């Protein structure tokens, strides 16, 4: 219980802020109690390194003021640019590449030679009657082939 009490004193406030009576209690107890002696030593060294830690001043470099002012001007110049301009700057590369790709695809769709689909070639080999009547044929046609054959025949009839 007494041991716990000493540690509580050490933890409740900084060591340099302890009263003389608290310090006397700690030192007298620490002489008799090994674990409290260790705790006191650790607290004492911790207090020393903390006080040294904040006592070492860091002088700013002579260019610090210039750097801060430059950063401030840069920040202001960014804020003064309109929002659409900032958006354009950030997405310029993406938009340009998308426009180029679209243009390239457009050019290719006009000038590349057309490749006839497989259905167009084979459809003419069948007549509508043959398709409808010859259901048992081993020669299977695709759905597109059937449709194109029927509509081709109808168109031929209309022309006639």
């Amino acid at each position, binding site marked *: 219980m007494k041991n716990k009490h000493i540690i509580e004193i*050490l*933890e*409740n406030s*900084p*060591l*340099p*802020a302890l009263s003389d009576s608290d310090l006397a209690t700690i030192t007298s107890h620490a002489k008799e109690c090994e674990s409290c002696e*260790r*705790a006191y*030593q*650790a*607290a*004492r*060294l*911790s*207090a*020393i*390194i*903390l*006080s*040294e*830690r*904040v*006592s*070492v*001043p*860091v*002088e*700013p*470099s002579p260019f*610090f003021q210039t*750097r*801060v002012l430059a*950063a*401030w001007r840069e*920040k202001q110049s960014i804020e003064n640019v309109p929002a659409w301009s900032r958006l354009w700057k950030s997405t310029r590369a993406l938009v340009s590449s998308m426009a180029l790709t679209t243009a390239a695809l457009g050019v290719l769709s006009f000038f590349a030679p057309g490749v006839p689909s497989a259905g167009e070639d084979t459809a003419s080999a069948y007549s509508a009657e043959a398709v409808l009547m010859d259901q048992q044929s081993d020669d299977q046609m695709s759905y597109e082939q059937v449709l194109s054959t029927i509509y081709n025949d109808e168109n031929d009839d209309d022309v006639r």
Partner: protein
Amino acid sequence: MANRFFRQRALVEEAAQEVFLKAFTQLDSYEGRGSMEGWLTRIATNTCLNMVRSAKRRPELAVADLTDDENHWLDTNAGHTGDEPQSVEDKVVASDLADRLLGTLPAEDQVALLMIDGENASVKEVAEATGWSESKVKVRAFRARRKLRETMEKLLGSKAGRREGKLA
């Protein structure tokens, strides 16, 4: 203010620059109710706290992690009972050691400990600077003090163990 939290000049200047820029941009939000100094201190504390948070935390510290100078400093100072004045070199080594030990603590605990134990700030002053409640400041400082003492005790214990091992 930034000097409390960081020792490397680059970090101190980075923090100070950030504080100035924030203060310039948020000047409209200053209502003039409190002191300008208090307002600036709060911005500075929160900026530094965020920077400390972003630094990598080391959960544990062992004797093997210490430099020769730090080991020597501990050996020299552990046996003494009074607070002998430190040489300039010893002050630097002690500060390095403090940085290592503080690195094992959460950012909020570091802030509370540095301000209260390092700079003798009152709980109320820390509460005003951070925007925390006074009870939170007390809890943070208490926990930090305990963790720091325990880590230091562990270091001293393992050093003593090594010495005994060598003697045996």
